[in-house]
């Protein structure tokens, strides 16, 4: 017998959040089966990573990506989860927990992990529909239900949470204003110089920032329509997000008579005033301090777990934590006493042109505080020096420039030298000791296995190199990284890894990528430079500055080079439609510039072949004047949308395929893609537009539209796969945008949709586009965000630029 007939002590956990479940994980690791565990969760979902709500809102993650422990985990560990039921009473005398829906569970030991409540400003109208807070996945769902392109949104609070909400909503297309009471943003983490750079960066992203501004009321009948400020100004708003602070959620503890102040009072071992009740996380107050970040909570969880199972534990002492902005697209880190005082001095590095500011606050040659913005690449190192209270006198002159100035330039050696307590993965709070211990204890041999077991490097991936160094040192020669095909001879990294590190490491220029990823050639080659240029455009829309010299000639010249060095010019003909004005303009251009050949292309438009380089800009200017724009026949980009005549004319047509084709082309023109992207729309299953060999093909049916993907009529013929059937025109547009974005984000450079789908499987694409509704919405939003910066006619741009040098000789000596 395994002793299961002995009654096990019953542990009830109130709060299914980050602190509560981390403690349960620690307990399971220390003494599996020790407790009979029941968890009450006020939220309906399993335990998820609250930190990742910001990328969930911004669209960078799906809910499935941020779940920490899914239902199977509770079942596998024999934990009873009562999700979606609030505990509203604890009978301490009879040791009984009562849920709001009538559940009653007896306990021997109780753990309170009720977190915080967002603070709601006590101003008139705060209860109106459309006024939300930012704490739970339900809040994010409520925001996403309202926000559309152009939704007027006010975020109240320019702290960490407020700015993450503002950035996420901005990415979703909302028109965002941030109202902040204090004169500078994030005053609890940033000094004025850093706050100023941050404000500038956010303003550039299209947000309006109002500092030193106070909210007086929310206007509107049922739903909010405007925010009224103290000075009387009204800001129209259909959505208001309040992020003005949090309060420990100690109401239940107070009601049942536990000693409370701001939070539930706990001692160094997380015990409350009742010896059978522990408390942990944001609901507690320890030594007069309350908490709002996860790092101290992980320490609390370890100590509470040990104490609860009767093992000795050192008492809790809060350590410095570091705050970073995750999603604003601005690197920002702050920690410790960053403001400094009379007893401290500063080392400051400022590069305003590049938006970089770093400040270390020193007391007696030890770092006691830090702020950096614009470049956080050395922040982990500085933070470690601060935590270890390292005396930096010996390298004080160079410390601001980061560890490169130190002799130990070998990055692997630097990781190995870190203490076990050093945090390797910031996203998931995994420290070095945990990773090395799992590698040995569980015999892990691959990066993926480490990701699966410890979650280290599974979120943004910027710590991948560190984790690999740990694997390498643990396994020695036995460590065989999965053989992958490098992108080109300039690097050992494959396409996917390069992309992951571009986003994870916030690398924003080609030189930055080559520097950080240790490129083996000074400036790459003709294969990697165009690929990197594309990956950067895709990762940082609106921010990345396109590098013309890293583009293939056609994309640099906005025309197709021909075998004799002349060019061909193909204007866009939306959905294959044209008219007399356009045809006349084309005829005039052909005569005026003596263009030798005019041809109807296979893509339903007109090609003018043999245009001389020096005539290109003049040809475009003339075509532009008639309303014709670039057809991108030269680009790894959206090419043509072929259509048939459809229900407007054809006796078999069931839907207006021509109009649908025009709408799709209007939506997607200008988009850069890994390889060229072609579409077609046919008005009935006779399929005259050849939709079944297009990257995205649409075929009308009586009931709506069939959406098909992954077709290719080129070198290797491939018919499309059916993606799904939809009924409305709006759905066609939505699925198309989402599909293009998935392809843009996940296919490798120069991989058409056909080989991409062969590689990842149509099931995967269906899951992402059809089944995952929220994910589809997020892809859609990211596509439209990118289009805001992509839909600029390059011909108009080139032909009106002062000196478009590449179209002429630099000197003529004959």
């Amino acid at each position, binding site marked *: 017998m395994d002793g299961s007939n002995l009654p096990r002590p019953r542990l009830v956990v109130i709060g299914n959040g980050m602190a509560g479940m981390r403690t349960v994980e620690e307990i399971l690791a220390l003494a599996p089966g020790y407790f009979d565990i029941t968890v009450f969760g006020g939220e309906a979902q399993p335990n998820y990573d609250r930190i990742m709500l910001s990328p969930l809102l911004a669209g960078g993650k799906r809910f499935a990506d941020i779940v920490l422990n899914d239902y199977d985990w509770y079942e596998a560990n024999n934990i009873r989860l009562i999700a979606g039921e609030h505990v509203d009473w604890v009978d301490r005398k009879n040791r009984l927990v009562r849920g709001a829906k009538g559940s009653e569970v007896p306990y021997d030991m109780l753990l309170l992990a009720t977190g915080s409540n967002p603070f709601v400003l006590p101003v008139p109208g705060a209860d109106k529909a459309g006024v939300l807070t930012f704490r739970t996945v339900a809040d994010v769902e409520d925001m996403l239900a309202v926000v559309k392109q152009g939704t007027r949104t006010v975020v109240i609070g320019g702290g960490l949470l407020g700015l993450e909400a503002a950035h996420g909503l901005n990415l979703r297309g909302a028109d965002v204003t941030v109202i902040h009471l204090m004169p500078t943003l994030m005053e609890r983490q940033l000094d004025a110089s850093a706050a100023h750079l941050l404000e500038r960066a956010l303003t550039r992203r299209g947000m309006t920032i109002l500092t030193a501004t106070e909210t007086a009321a929310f206007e509107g009948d049922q739903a909010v329509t405007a925010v009224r400020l103290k000075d009387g100004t009204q800001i129209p708003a259909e959505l208001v997000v309040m992020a003005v602070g949090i309060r420990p959620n100690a109401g239940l503890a107070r009601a049942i008579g536990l000693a409370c102040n701001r939070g539930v009072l706990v001692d160094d071992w997380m015990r409350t005033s009742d010896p059978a009740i522990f408390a942990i996380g944001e609901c507690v107050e320890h030594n007069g301090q309350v908490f709002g970040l996860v790092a101290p909570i992980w320490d609390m969880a370890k100590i509470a777990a040990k104490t609860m199972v009767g093992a000795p534990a050192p008492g809790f002492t809060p350590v410095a934590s570091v705050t970073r902005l995750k999603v604003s697209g601005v690197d920002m880190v702050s920690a410790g006493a960053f403001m400094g005082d009379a007893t401290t001095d500063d080392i400051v590095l400022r590069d305003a042109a590049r938006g970089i500011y770093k400040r270390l606050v020193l007391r007696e040659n030890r770092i006691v505080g830090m702020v950096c913005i614009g470049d956080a690449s050395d922040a982990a190192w500085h933070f470690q020096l601060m935590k270890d209270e390292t005396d930096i006198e010996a390298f004080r002159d160079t410390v601001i420039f980061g560890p490169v100035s130190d002799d130990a330039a070998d990055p692997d050696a630097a990781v190995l030298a870190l203490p076990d307590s050093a945090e390797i993965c910031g996203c998931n709070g995994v420290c070095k000791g945990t990773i090395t211990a799992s590698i040995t204890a569980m015999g892990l041999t691959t990066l993926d296995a480490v990701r699966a077991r410890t979650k280290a490097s599974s979120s943004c991936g910027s710590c991948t190199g560190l984790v690999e160094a740990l694997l390498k040192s643990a396994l020695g020669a036995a460590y065989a990284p999965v053989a992958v095909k490098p992108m080109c001879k300039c690097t050992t990294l494959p396409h996917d890894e390069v992309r992951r590190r571009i986003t994870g490491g916030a690398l924003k220029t080609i030189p930055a990528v080559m520097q950080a990823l240790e490129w083996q*050639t*000074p*400036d*790459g*080659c*003709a294969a990697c*430079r*165009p690929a990197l240029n594309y990956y950067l455009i895709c990762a940082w829309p609106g921010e990345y500055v396109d590098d*013309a*010299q*890293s*583009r*293939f*000639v056609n994309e*640099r*010249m906005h025309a197709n*080079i021909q*075998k*004799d*060095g002349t060019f061909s010019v193909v204007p866009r003909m939306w959905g294959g439609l044209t008219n007399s004005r356009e045809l006349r303009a084309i005829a005039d251009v052909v005569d005026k510039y003596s263009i030798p050949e005019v041809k109807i292309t296979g893509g339903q438009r007109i090609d003018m072949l043999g245009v001389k380089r020096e005539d290109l800009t003049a040809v475009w200017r003339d075509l532009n004047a008639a309303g014709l724009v670039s057809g991108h026949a030269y680009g790894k980009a959206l090419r043509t949308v072929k259509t048939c005549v459809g229900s407007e004319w054809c006796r078999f047509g069931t839907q207006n395929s021509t109009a649908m084709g025009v709408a799709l082309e209007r939506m997607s023109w200008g988009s850069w893609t890994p390889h060229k992207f072609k579409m077609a729309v046919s008005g009935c299953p006779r399929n005259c537009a050849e939709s079944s060999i297009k990257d995205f093909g649409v075929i009308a049916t009586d009931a709506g539209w069939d959406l098909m993907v992954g077709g290719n009529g080129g070198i290797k013929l491939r018919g499309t796969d059916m993606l799904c059937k939809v009924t409305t025109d709006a759905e066609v547009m939505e699925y198309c945008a989402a599909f293009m974005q998935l392809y843009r984000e996940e296919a490798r450079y120069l991989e058409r949709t056909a080989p991409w789908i062969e590689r990842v499987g149509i099931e995967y694409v269906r899951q992402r586009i059809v089944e995952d509704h929220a994910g589809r919405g997020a892809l859609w939003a990211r596509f439209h965000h990118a289009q805001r910066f992509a839909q600029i006619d390059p011909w108009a741009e080139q032909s009106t630029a002062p000196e478009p*040098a*590449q179209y002429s*000789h*630099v*000197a*003529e*000596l*004959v």
Partner: protein
Amino acid sequence: MDGMMAEAAFIDIGGLDDIPLRGARTVATAHGTIAVFRTGDDAVFALRDSCPHRGGPISHGIVHGHGVTCPLHGWVFSLESGAALGEDAPCIARFRTRIEGRRILLDIAGPILAA
């Protein structure tokens, strides 16, 4: 032989900044079109703008290190020697250049002859 050209004839063809970094511009001369390259380290090279494969305009190629990839079929050439890397093909004719201040001078007397 190299250096045996009678009269070097260096002519100012423009400023360094008239050529994009890692790019090229062309010069029309009596010897045909010459491509003048500016590499990432600000070195300048001049080669005849015609690929020995099928006459592609190498001035439109992607410049990397001291090399260029022909835009038509991807042959790679050394800008220093004009040699095609990995192809059995004649070198591309090179011309002398000189930088004075930030001005570029090109010797249009004729190509550098193989040693």
